[in-house]
């Protein structure tokens, strides 16, 4: 059964320096509050996994939490670059960042394989592209039935996965609605999992086919209203596209970035 606790305790009891962690949420339900708590607790040397690093990993990379990033698309959606990510990669600031780069299809398959207890993911992809030559985790396997050549990559099995969802009940069963990305897969692939929720309710009011992660498949549930802001939570609040646009200016400059983090994360 999941332990229902507060965010501070959930992070301090599960995230350890040097671990491999995934904060998932595909544009929607990005666990920003949890990422900010990791920054406040000063976690270091993390290998961060996310299909789209988004602003949350830009902030964590800029604060020196990461030694490595495993990702598929590292941009500020519809706006431009992730400047803290680029500064780490291009100039080693605040520290050098190792990268392992994949396509989204590859990452989605690798999370799915991790959740399925498999050591590898098999799919059709990477044909003719340069990533395949640069990422030594991309290998090939021959189908024993059709003799087709298929891509094989290691499954993703994070030490800790953190996601945000709409609600849980008092037992810690979690309901997710809207764009669900790879959240369920990322939770089931992980050794330890934390879910932050908008609210804890008496009754989930779920329909028969709702996406629910049972309490007994989770480790921690914490109630964190607005925990996905400035991304969004379907049914609760919209995506703050204005903030995503403004992040470009805030993150371009190291000093401006640090003072923003100081006011909006560290002193909160």
């Amino acid at each position, binding site marked *: 059964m999941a332990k229902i606790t507060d965010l501070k305790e959930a992070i301090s009891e599960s995230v350890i320096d040097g671990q491999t962690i995934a904060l998932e949420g595909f544009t929607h339900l990005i666990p920003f509050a949890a990422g900010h708590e990791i920054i406040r607790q000063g976690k270091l040397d993390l290998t961060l996994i996310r299909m789209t690093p988004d602003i949350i990993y830009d902030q964590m990379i800029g604060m020196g939490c990461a030694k490595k990033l495993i990702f598929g*698309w590292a941009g500020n*959606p519809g706006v431009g670059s992730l400047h803290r990510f680029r500064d780490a990669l291009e100039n080693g600031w605040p520290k050098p960042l190792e990268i392992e780069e994949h396509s989204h299809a590859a990452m989605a398959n690798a999370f799915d394989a991790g959740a399925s207890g498999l050591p590898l993911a098999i799919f059709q992809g990477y044909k*003719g592209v*340069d990533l395949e030559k640069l990422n030594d985790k991309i290998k090939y396997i021959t189908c024993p039935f059709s003799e087709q050549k298929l891509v094989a990559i290691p499954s993703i099995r994070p030490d800790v996965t953190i996601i945000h969802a709409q609600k849980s009940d008092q037992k810690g069963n979690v309901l997710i609605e809207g*764009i669900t*990305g*790879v959240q369920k897969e990322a939770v089931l692939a992980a050794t330890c999992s934390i879910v932050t929720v908008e609210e804890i309710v008496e009754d989930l009011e779920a329909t028969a086919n709702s996406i629910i992660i049972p309490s007994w498949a989770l480790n921690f549930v914490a109630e964190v209203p607005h925990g996905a802001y400035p991304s969004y939570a379907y049914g609760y609040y919209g*995506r703050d596209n204005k903030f995503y*646009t403004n992040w470009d200016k805030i993150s371009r400059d190291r000093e401006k970035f640090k003072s923003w983090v100081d006011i909006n994360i560290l002193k909160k």
Partner: protein
Amino acid sequence: MTKINHTPDEMMTIAAARELKDGQICFVGIGLPSAAANLARLSHAPEIVLIYESGTLDTKPDILPLSIGDPELSESALTNESVPEMFRFWLQGGHINLGFLGGAQIDRFANINSTVIGNYSEPKVRLPGAGGAPEIATHCGEIFVIIRQSKRSFVEKVDFITSFGHGEGKNHRKRLGIDTKGPTKIITDLCIMEPEPDSFELIVTSIHSGVSREEISQSTGWEIRFANNINTTKAPSNIELGALRALQNRSLEATFLSKN
């Protein structure tokens, strides 16, 4: 001289929208492809099915999304699929007949770069990377590309192949065991290009109204050739321009004037 009352970007988006038809199942990239695809859906192709890789299936946004998974896409979709299902069932499973992509660089055989300018390990400019594009480029029935044309974006050889077009030309796709068509139309702010039969090198097949051959040659990083039977892309009509501007205005308003 007729007075030009549209911008090159508007011409590009409208020319691209015209290529889209009812009945297509279209996997849409964010930005320019999304603008053209929604313009088509809101005008001449109301039955076109638009799919974004966030898992939003058959989505009908009234405003252009800023990100690939905006609330507008999710709430107006027929259904929201998980991302593994999106890539495994719908894309790899072969249900999508058209992929619509953008990019930072494209070469004479329509290979696309959205990863890096310069060297991968010591980048001049680090771009966002692959996202869904590599598998969209090989699993969809065919590919349209929309990209602004300049010597920097239209290069002899891309710095990095993020998405495979026609490789080194000729039957390169077939040699790699790819049985989809790949890029069939490249729509720019100056013209439309298509791969020449057999060589698969891009050639200009339609020049946008008011644009000269010299402008196109000077904005291409290789010696671009022109088809024998070349068309002129008709200038946008007032109806087309009105629909595009209305769409863009209400999208901007939604992003910047909303109270969250």
